[in-house]
């Protein structure tokens, strides 16, 4: 286990060190102490390492992640795991605005609540929120899965493309072109897998599925495989 004191040694040193780990590194386990709400902690990583942040962070934690598993033992500010490509980001506390925005892959788990615009423009990432999410979540979401074990706020899935939205609790309102859809066996399977991997104990049968009514954009069934 390597320990990095962010307060003593600075942000650039942390990210340069973590970014320089190759896929064959022996230093697979890192601990970041004294994060004190700092921005851009553990961004741009591209190695199968495990990073644990011992406290709450500010903006853009774990952005652009590839391969790494980043765990935050606290809450995160706006834009956690933005544009994630692969790997995992796990937040023990709450997440502020636009968690997992534009993510293309990997798994983001938020054990508390996420606020507004969670999963905005997501492009393939999987997001599991144990608590509630705020308004305008999954706005223009293109691909991937957003799983919410609590409630969703206003205008869920506005202008949605082909992302799947699963909500266990209530939805305050659906956004334009977002509708409730039938939960088929393949969806229950996807959901079960995500809930297991996210350590959520909800049962897939308790969820409802929401998706695009495909009235707002030029959907052609011949292109369905692209999503």
């Amino acid at each position, binding site marked *: 286990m390597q320990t990095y004191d962010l307060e003593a040694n600075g942000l650039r040193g942390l990210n340069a060190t973590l970014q320089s780990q190759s896929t064959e590194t022996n230093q697979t386990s890192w601990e970041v102490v004294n994060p*004190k*709400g*700092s921005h851009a902690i553990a961004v741009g990583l591209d190695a199968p390492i495990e990073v644990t942040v011992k406290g*709450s*962070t*500010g*903006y853009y934690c774990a952005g652009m992640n590839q391969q790494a598993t980043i765990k935050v033992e606290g*809450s995160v*500010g*706006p834009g956690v795991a933005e544009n994630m490509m692969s790997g995992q980001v796990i937040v023990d*506390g*709450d997440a*502020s*605005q636009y968690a997992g925005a534009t993510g293309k892959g990997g798994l983001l788990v938020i054990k508390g609540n996420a*606020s*507004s615009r969670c999963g905005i423009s997501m492009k393939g990432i999987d997001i599991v929120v144990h608590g509630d999410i*705020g*308004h305008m979540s999954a706005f223009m979401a293109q691909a991937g899965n957003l799983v919410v074990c609590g409630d969703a706020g206003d205008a869920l899935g506005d202008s949605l493309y082909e992302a799947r939205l699963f909500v266990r609790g209530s939805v305050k309102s659906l956004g334009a072109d977002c509708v409730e859809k039938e939960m088929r066996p393949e969806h229950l399977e996807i959901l079960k897998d995500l809930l297991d991997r996210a350590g959520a104990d909800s049962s897939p049968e308790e969820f409802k599925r929401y998706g695009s009514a495909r009235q707002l954009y030029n959907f052609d069934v011949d292109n369905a495989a692209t999503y």
Partner: protein
Amino acid sequence: MCGIVGLFLKDQSLAPQLGNMLTDMLITMTDRGPDSAGIAIYGEESGGATKVTLQSPNPKEDFAGLAEELGQHLGAVVSQTDNDTHTVLDVPAGHFEAARATLAEIRPSVQIMSRGEMLEIYKEVGLPKDVAARFDISSMSGTHGIGHTRMATESAVTTMGAHPFNTGPDQCLVHNGSLSNHNSLRRKLRREGVVIQTENDTEVGAAYLTWKMMNGASLGEALESSLEDLDGFFTFVVGTKDGFGVVRDPIACKPAVMAETDQYVAFGSEYRALVNLPGIEDARVWEPEPATVYFWSHNDSPTTTEKAA
């Protein structure tokens, strides 16, 4: 951008450290706005007199013998405490409007920063650390206070364009965001007799709340109606003689974090601003909901009054 900090003490044993804690919080927010900074402190009650905080670009000339001269005009005893470009006058109750009129005559370059029984506002162009140092904010004590560091968008970078804004007795407001209907609202409020000194959008927000309260609304009610009547982006933190409130517009893109312990309620634009507060590790930390009014008062039992608008 802009950075906001606020601290409302439940445990008055922390009162001597209020200025120090607020200064530390505000300096942490410097990179959210380096144009100008200001702090509103609710300190010792003046025992019925009105504390009038003044600012002058020429403090030496303007503040020399000011209390005495003003007192002669008013036929009352006025005292003054100078602090760099600011001075705090103690004007006997009932003389404020006369004092304002007299000041405009005898000291035309002097600006009124605030008035009230407890409130003092110190603000200037410059970085939070420099502004806080020149007024020695760290040494000030009080029951609650609000700080702001500005990245100007809607009006010029001047002392008068800095936050907090005071438009009624012991009321102050700071703002992160921008209002888009401030011109029409300013005209309307001026017609109603509310004094608005600048072309700044935030001052209109403050004046709006003052006007609502002049017409019988509580601060909580005024904040709720602001959600209807103000157009634009805002996270507001407001102070009154015994209270402290927070409201965000329904879009809520301007950041806000709150923390509450048995000792205090704290506000920061970012969590970074709160990390050095005592007991923050065990505080309840949350993001205030959009279009929801939060209010704490020393008058009530110290509990959250949350009401969906």
